[in-house]
């Protein structure tokens, strides 16, 4: 208790984490607020429009987005396994688990891109759609598009970390910091999935 008090009073490391990790946490908090703003914008438009479209059928849209959720959740598990292998100094195992994580991320992007194409072929554009409130497209594409961008950047980031860690240029803390980012991307999807998909199921 006494040592904690001195840390708050200006000790050398009040949070007892390396600066890279603190930096990633601060980025995550600011990014979480960006996503919150977009989720609130989506929900605001949805509440304010009585004719908000509910275009997602249980099959294929909800089934595929459930599989996408499974991909992201599982890639988070392979990521924590990568981090714990990295901390034990097992470089080969860590790289293998990071590659598995990247595969989960890629599967997510491919399925989601497919979902986008399906909506675009149904006539959804940012300011027009065949079913009702025109803003549906703008809010949907902005929210899920920013998330997909994060997943793509995450896969690239993990690729760089895997290469660097495999060659011994990065330390295990770099793997842990990239893991923080990856779990955050997973976390955001845990809110997009229910708010955008599960709340808009169309029962034909």
């Amino acid at each position, binding site marked *: 208790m006494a040592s904690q008090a001195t840390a708050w009073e200006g000790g050398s490391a009040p949070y007892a*984490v390396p600066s890279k990790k603190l930096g990633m946490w601060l980025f995550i908090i600011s990014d979480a607020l960006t996503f919150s703003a977009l989720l*609130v914008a989506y929900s605001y438009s*949805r509440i*304010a429009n009585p004719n908000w479209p509910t275009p997602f059928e249980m099959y294929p849209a909800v089934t595929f987005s459930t599989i996408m959720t*499974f991909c992201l959740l599982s890639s988070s598990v392979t990521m924590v396994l990568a981090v714990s292998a990295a901390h034990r100094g097992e470089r080969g195992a860590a790289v293998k688990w990071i590659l598995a994580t990247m595969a989960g991320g890629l599967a997510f992007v491919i399925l989601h891109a497919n979902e986008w194409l399906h909506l675009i072929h149904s006539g959804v554009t940012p300011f027009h759609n065949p079913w009702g409130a025109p803003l549906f497209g703008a809010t949907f594409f902005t929210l899920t598009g920013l998330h997909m961008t994060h997943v793509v950047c995450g896969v690239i980031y993990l690729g760089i970390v895997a290469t660097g860690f495999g060659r011994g240029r990065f330390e295990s803390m770099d793997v842990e910091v990239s893991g923080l980012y990856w779990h955050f991307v997973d976390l955001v999807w845990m809110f997009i999935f229910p708010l955008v998909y599960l*709340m808009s199921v169309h029962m034909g």
Partner: protein
Amino acid sequence: MSEQHGNRIYLTVWFWLLALTAVEVFLAYKQLPVHTMLALLMGLSLVKAALIIAYFMHLRFEKASLAWTLMPPLVICIVLMIAFSFPDGLRLFDMRKG
């Protein structure tokens, strides 16, 4: 501080995250009234978010000062966003419905 944890706890958390997701999809299939759905889905998602932050992102095992610095500002900002926008959204809904 990075203590060593068994990988078992991560697999347990993964299992619960998948189970809660299955409950959410089941709720969507059941088509409950929209307010009940929203409350249940957001409640379940907050539990999932807390599991991810506490275990996968390891925040539970960091020094408490880190969590107390990061989380309250985030929660306060999100609550403010919701408090400012949702009553106005409902007002617009009532105006347009008529």
